[in-house]
Structure formats: C-alpha cells, structure tokens
C-alpha cells in the first residue's frame, strides 16, 4: 500500500458556544469577532479525522494549513492535539480581507510549496460563511480534480479512489485518480476525542508561519485587493407572527384557511 500525503485546509470560526455575543459591524458588514474564542470549523475536523484514519491504515503524513492572524495558531495547536504531523499558517497583513477566491488562491500557493501532496481535504463548507466555494477553488488553482459533499472514501488501488458524494435524495459514486481535492461532510465520520498525549503534541510542536515572501504569490490576487467580491449589505431577517381567528362551520373554516394561505403564497403549487 502506498503511503498517502494529506493536506487538510482548516478555517478558524467563532466558537458556537459564544454566538450570542456575535455582532455584525454595520460599517464593514463583517462579523465582529473580538473577544470570541475561535475553533476549527467543525467539518474541517471531520477532514482531519478522515486523513488520520487513512494515514493510520496506509501510512503517510497529515499536514494542516490555515490562513489568518497569529491567533489562528491556537486552532493549529488543537489540530496537533488530534495527532497531525505538521501545521502551516499563512499569516501576513497582505492576506487580510480575502474573499473565497483570494483565500483559495493563497491556500493553493501554500499547498504548492509543500512537497508531493496526494489528497487535499477540507470541510464542505464553513460554519460561519457556508459558501462551500473554497474547496473547488483550491482544486482549480492546484489543477487537480475535486469532489464536494464527500461522505465516504474508498481506495480501489494506490492511485484510484471511489468517492461517495451526497446529493439530494441519494448519492453518486465517483471514481477519481490522485492527486485530488475532496470536500467532506459531517457524515463522513465521527471525529475522535484527542488523545491525552495531544496535550503534549499541542504544546511542544510548533506550526510553521509563512508570510507572502515565503510562498510564490501574485500580490494582486491576495487579500482584499485580490478579492472580486465584497459584502454590500447585510440585513437581519425578522420573523413575525400574526394571528387571526376564523369563525364558522369546520368546512367553511377550512376553505377560508386555504384561501388565506394561497393569498399569502405559502401553499405549494398555489
């Protein structure tokens, strides 16, 4: 069996335990994250788990990569606690303010610097942005195929995978060659609790920190300047309740109810 080298892209997201403290900044239209602990995006933990399981069965190496300010090192320490071999943080003011495209470009540039990567894994989408775009974009920048919505990975031989992809009302099985990028769902596995030795790995291993000078990038394509999209407006959706008492015989009430719901456009096919 050929050993497999993995890169797992991980994103720092605000810890859902503190979401009641999250506020939107009315000027920048971004989440105000100050004072809110960050964690690894949950589906990215599924990606780490899958990489570790395959590595434990076949041998190889698992490297995690992330992009963000220096406090992102905290989540990379947590990745070390799970047992990954190596961690890289792309950290530079020039990377800041990136949309999904500029993020994927930067991540792909970092991955290219790592030697011989067989499988790039990441969560299908993030807990905060939920665009699901970074996976396919990273794959395009790397020039490798990608599969999203992955809920199972099987090796056919050393270079061929059968990947089960979740779709509405079913699944597809896709055959792909390595190298490949796979965006996994939360159903692919049940992540482990880190080993108690993870407390040592997390505190003794140190992530590499790369700036724009360490990776080959076109400075026009990273950070805010390299981001073709921006958020022009955010709005809170307010849910309201209305009540109205219908009177009459049951059949009559039912008729009135259907008419009213049809008028509101909430009945299917109405």
């Amino acid at each position, binding site marked *: 069996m050929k050993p497999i080298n993995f890169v797992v892209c991980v994103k720092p997201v605000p810890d859902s335990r503190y979401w009641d403290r999250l506020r939107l900044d009315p000027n920048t239209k971004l989440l105000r994250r100050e004072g809110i602990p960050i964690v690894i995006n949950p589906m990215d933990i599924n990606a780490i788990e899958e990489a570790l399981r395959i590595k434990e069965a076949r041998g190889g190496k698992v490297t995690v990569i992330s992009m963000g300010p220096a406090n992102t090192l905290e989540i990379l320490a*947590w990745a070390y606690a799970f047992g990954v071999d190596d961690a890289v943080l792309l950290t530079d003011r020039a990377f800041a303010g990136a949309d999904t495209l500029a993020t994927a470009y930067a991540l792909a540039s970092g991955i290219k610097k790592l030697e011989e990567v067989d499988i790039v894994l990441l969560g299908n989408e993030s807990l905060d942005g939920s665009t699901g775009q970074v996976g396919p974009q990273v794959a395009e920048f790397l020039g490798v195929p990608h599969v999203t919505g992955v809920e199972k990975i099987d090796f056919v031989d050393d270079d061929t995978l059968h990947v089960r992809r979740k779709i509405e009302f079913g699944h597809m099985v896709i055959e792909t060659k390595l190298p490949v990028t796979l965006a996994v769902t939360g159903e692919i596995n049940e992540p482990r*609790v*880190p*080993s*108690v030795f993870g*407390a*040592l790995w*997390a*505190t003794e291993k140190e992530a590499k920190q790369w700036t724009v000078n360490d990776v080959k990038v076109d400075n026009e394509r990273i950070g805010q300047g390299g981001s073709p999209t921006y958020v022009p407006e955010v709005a809170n959706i307010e849910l309201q309740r209305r009540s109205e008492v219908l009177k009459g015989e049951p059949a009559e009430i039912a008729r009135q109810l259907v008419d009213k719901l049809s008028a509101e456009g909430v009945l299917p096919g109405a």
Partner: protein
Amino acid sequence: MPFELTPAEEMVRRITREYAEKEIVPRRKELMTDDREIWEEQAVKQLKAGHHLHIIPREEGGTGIGFVASCIAVEELCAAWPDLCFIPYGEFAYYFAKATGGVVYDKFMPGIISGDIQATPAITEPSGGSDMLGLQANAKKVDGGWVLNGRKCFVGEGHYSDFVMTLFKTGDPNDPKTPGIRSLTAFIVERGMDGFRVGRNENTLSRKNDITEFIFDDVFVPDSHVVGGERGIGHGIAPVFSAVGDIGRMTISGILNGATLGCYRTAVQYARERKLYGRPISELQAIQTRIAQMATDLQATRALTYRAAWMRTRGIRCDAEQATAKVFAELAATRATTHCVKIHGAYGVLEDYMPHHYYKHTPVRFGAGGTEESLNIMIANAALRQDANPDMSSKSMENAGWWGRLDW
C-alpha cells in the same frame, strides 16, 4: 508563585472536557435513572483513553504533565457527571506498582499504561478506618509469603479492581518488637488469588452498587507482593498515607471541585435562560449573590487544590496542603450544590435535572480520602508543630521533611 496553568495543563482541560461532552453529557438521561451499562463502559473507556496517565512520568509511558493536570481531568469529568470518574483507580494502580516494584511492577505496568488495569486501596474495616491501630485484619508469615485473613469495606469501585493495596497487621502493636504502627504492613493482593473475593456491594446516596467489600479468607500472598519488599514489613503506613494523600485526597478534591464547577456552569446557564417577572433571573440581585458565592468558592477551591497538586509534582512536602484542599473542596461543594439547587427552584430537586445529582453525590465524598475531622487533626498538627507553611515560602517548603513519604 505562578498563577496560571501551563499550556499543557490548559490543553488537558480542553481534551478532557471534549471527552466529557462527547461521552458523558449526551448520556446524562441514562445516568439519572442509574444505568449500569454506562458505568461498565466508562470503567474501560476512561482509562483506555489514558486520563490517568498525567501523574506517570514520560519515561515510564505517561504524559508526565503532573498532578495539577490530573486534578483538572478529574474536575472536568465530574463536572459532566459528579462521580463517573475512573482516573483515581488508574493512578492508584501505578502508585502501588511503583511502590512495590519487582515482579508486581513488571507484571502490571504494561496494562497500567494501556489502561487495562485498575487498583484501589482497601484500608477501612467495618470497625473504622481512621484508627489504624484498631485494624483487625491480620497476616501470618509462612514459607515464601504471608497468609491474610480479614475484611475490608467501603472501597470505591472495588469490584472493578484488578488488584488492591491493603493494610494488614503483621505484629502486635503492644509488642516492643513491633510497636504501634510498626505492626502494620501493606500488601498487594490480586483478583483471582485463592480466598480473595468481593463481598457485598453497598448502595449509597450516589447510586446502587457504589462501594465494595473485600473478603480475605486464608489468602496466600508471596513475599514479592509486600509493598516495599523486606523493608516494607512493619512499614505499611508510608505507602498507604502517601497513596491516600497523593492520589486519594487529590482526586477526591478534584471530584468535589468537579461538582462545584458543574453547579457553577449549570446555574449560570439556567439563570441566564430562566425568566421571571419578564426578565432573566440572572438580573435579580438575590440570584447574583448566589452566583458570586459560587464563583468565589470555585476559585478558592481550585487555587488550594492546584497548589497542593503543584507542590506534589515538584516533590515538595504537601500533606497538610492536601488535607487543606480536601477539607475546603468539601465545604465549597456543599455550598455550591446548595446554591445550584436553590437557583433552580423546584426544578433543582427533580431527578431529571443536574442540581439534584450534584447535590446528592457530594456527601459521598465526605469520608473518602479522610474525614474533615481527621484531616483537621493533620492540619492542626502541622500548624502546632510549626511544619505548616502559611507564608508559602519555597525555602521552608523544601526544608521540611515528610514523615509519610515514599522515597521515589
């Protein structure tokens, strides 16, 4: 004095909390109805996961992070459920194997590291535990070993133990050749040895089948199983006191602190969610006072426990500090569990809510690791002998001898 946890200790808290949130919290409903299955499962899983390895040095296969990490791990497990914690029994196994050495160490150590072996001390007898010279169990020397007869009781999770360390009389305390405590010797007794069996399991405030009785009926124990070897004959108090102090008292403090922590978390969340007079009860000053008292007790009890544990990791004498920590942990937990029940109003006493469980588990720890009364004697003795170190000077701490200490 450093007033922060090391990064590794912080990580231990996170990892253990993650474990508790995945393995224990989702199953609280089962635990509330006294389900045995989860106990059987956790008795294996917790040690397989290695939560007992923090006090074992790295060169012997542990994480070596230390006693503070152990207290933190115990605390996090017991915050999830106030007594579902097998860490002490993995730690005891190491402690006893280490104290005994030789074939006992070689036989059990691989299983201790892999989490397959548990052990417990068995000291207390139906007539009591604090009065060591009043112990009835006795051992007679025979060729190649000793024959043990007696009964030991009130042993926590004893029915899961693969071996026990127990204290037997090997002489007469009134005989000048074996005066006083020189009449006591500690032995390792393995499950499966002829004549050694588990008696009845007792039901406690905490749950059914909580504590165990051991019966020793003409049990032959080879010389290799005398704790401390030949030197250990008549010197059984040192390993027993060290184990009860270092493991027992520290983990019991952790267990009680876990109840305090669990109550604090539960009460804070409830106070923020429960509405009265159209607003959360957390806005009522009467509730805020209770929360403040819980927060104060939590900080104080952690500080005492962690400091005693830190001293132990550094090899500094800390028997009085361990006693202080346990006495205070008990008081803090008693207060915090009461506050938690009261903040929850009538819900606080329902079996379907956590305050009920934190509250009723706490008294189960009053006797374990030494009663408040006997620990107060230790604390007072240290104070009156001027061995105590309330100034926390490192100099005087390191100069102090430790009469009951194992020399490893």
